[in-house]
């Protein structure tokens, strides 16, 4: 823990408590109103919750580094629970090596190639769910779709893919404190660790898939033998539980705002924008940490080297200093500039694929479904980082 200046506004709640994670929005507002930088004594950290400072911290990677971990733990003083990610928990030049290869594999060009296949799966799935009528929007759509298309594209075996959900849940819990959420998640994932590491090996990945393409970069000398499985691991940890919740939250938003659903149904071309707005409104990824790499200043506040800095992405997305009527869900809004994918150098490298998945699910639903009827309240799945649902009972009415 480092010295924190006495005159920084203090907020005395726990951003990783069940109450906060269940309904964070009023806490967000209180933090934004307290000041551009706030102090959370419970964890000895500083936090930013306004759009300008969240954007500022994420875009100043030289000052607010990632190599000391993007969770609560400071890797300069504490041992990480797993070998650090070569992209998420790295600074240039290591970050640049990894990002160049992953950025090429997950580029807009790739999206053009996989689009038809992803579309076909979306249509088949939604046709099946329409016949069924009553569905769990989380399990049968939010989880089922990413768990099919993304591992297919990576080139992963069919067996045991549901392990990716438990793995993602653990990885994102691990950015928070060692609370009960993390302890439970770690217990669930322990027997699956071998499966994860085995499936990062080249012989278990379909030739030509995203995973195999990482190993091709070893052949060209861009990556080393030891870096390749670590970067495949990044696909497995970051590529599923994020889009699962992005889609689940979008369904929840649309089911609860029938006027917005009607607009989308009338004009399925709004699907991409609607998905973007739901990412802003209910950010699937709520927070990330950075670490002050040196003594510095932010918004006039002095910050000591090694101070952990929590960025509230979801709060930036609803900052009235940035957005008009931020608490209104409006699919015709221009929502670009939200912080759900992060921003700058470390902005989500898979965001074009995430957007593709979201757009295809929403546009297919918009064409084939007249109304999404909520059948009772959803159940939350609390996670230290993710905004997640455990179940979302819905009735789909065919168009």
């Amino acid at each position, binding site marked *: 823990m480092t010295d924190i200046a006495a005159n920084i506004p203090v907020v005395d709640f726990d951003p990783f408590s069940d109450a906060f994670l269940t309904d964070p929005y009023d806490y967000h507002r209180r933090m934004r109103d307290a000041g551009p930088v706030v102090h959370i004594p419970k964890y000895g950290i500083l936090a930013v919750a306004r759009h300008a400072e969240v954007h500022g911290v994420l875009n100043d990677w030289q000052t607010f580094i990632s190599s000391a971990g993007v969770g609560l733990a400071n890797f300069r003083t504490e041992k990480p629970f797993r070998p650090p990610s070569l992209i998420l928990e790295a600074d240039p030049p290591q970050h640049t090596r990894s990002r160049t290869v992953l950025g090429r594999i997950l580029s807009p060009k790739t999206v053009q190639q996989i689009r038809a296949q992803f579309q076909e799966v979306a249509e088949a799935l939604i046709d099946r769910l329409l016949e069924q009528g009553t569905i769990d929007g989380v399990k049968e759509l939010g989880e089922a779709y990413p768990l099919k298309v993304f591992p297919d594209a990576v080139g992963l075996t069919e067996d045991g893919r549901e392990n990716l959900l438990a793995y993602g849940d653990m990885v994102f819990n691990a950015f928070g404190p060692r609370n009960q959420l993390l302890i439970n998640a770690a217990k669930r994932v322990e027997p699956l660790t071998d499966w994860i590491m085995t499936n990062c090996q080249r012989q278990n990945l379909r030739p030509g898939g995203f995973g195999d393409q990482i190993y091709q970069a070893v052949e060209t000398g861009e990556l080393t033998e030891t870096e390749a499985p670590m970067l495949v691991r990044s696909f497995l940890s970051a590529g599923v539980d994020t889009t699962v919740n992005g889609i689940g939250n979008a369904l929840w938003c649309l089911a609860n705002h029938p006027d917005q659903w009607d607009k989308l149904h009338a004009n399925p071309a709004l699907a991409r924008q609607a998905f973007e707005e739901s990412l802003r409104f209910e950010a699937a990824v709520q927070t990330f940490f950075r670490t002050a790499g040196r003594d510095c200043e932010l918004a006039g506040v002095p910050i000591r080297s090694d101070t952990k800095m929590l960025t509230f992405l979801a709060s930036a997305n609803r900052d009235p200093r940035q957005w008009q009527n931020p608490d209104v869900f409006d699919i015709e809004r221009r929502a670009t500039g939200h912080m759900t994918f992060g921003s700058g150098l470390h902005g*989500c490298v898979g*965001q074009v694929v995430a*957007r593709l998945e979201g757009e295809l699910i929403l546009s297919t639903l918009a064409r084939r479904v007249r109304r999404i009827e909520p059948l009772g309240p959803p159940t939350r799945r609390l996670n230290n980082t993710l905004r997640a649902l455990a179940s979302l009972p819905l009735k789909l009415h065919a168009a």
Partner: protein
Amino acid sequence: MPEVHLIQPGGLRVTLDVPVGTSIMQAAVSAGVAGILAECGGSCMCATCHVYAEEAALARLPPVQPAEHEMLACTADERRPNSRLSCQVKMTDDLAGLSFTLPEIQ
């Protein structure tokens, strides 16, 4: 504050005051300029803030880094020698008065 000009495909010219250190993309999005989508918000991930720099500007712009070079291969409109991603061009006093033309599609 130094200014730059953005020229729409139809010829319409928008002049923006851009604070030094702010990217051309950010300034355009803040001003609501049509034709700059910037879906990824400046992470060099989406190639939807593509612009064509005027010849006179080329030598004064920051050099193209590898990530931008890769992403320029993914633009929806034709990539030309003067193609840049406007999220990667931060304003300097030296860029004052330069013009960028927007592509037909992003």
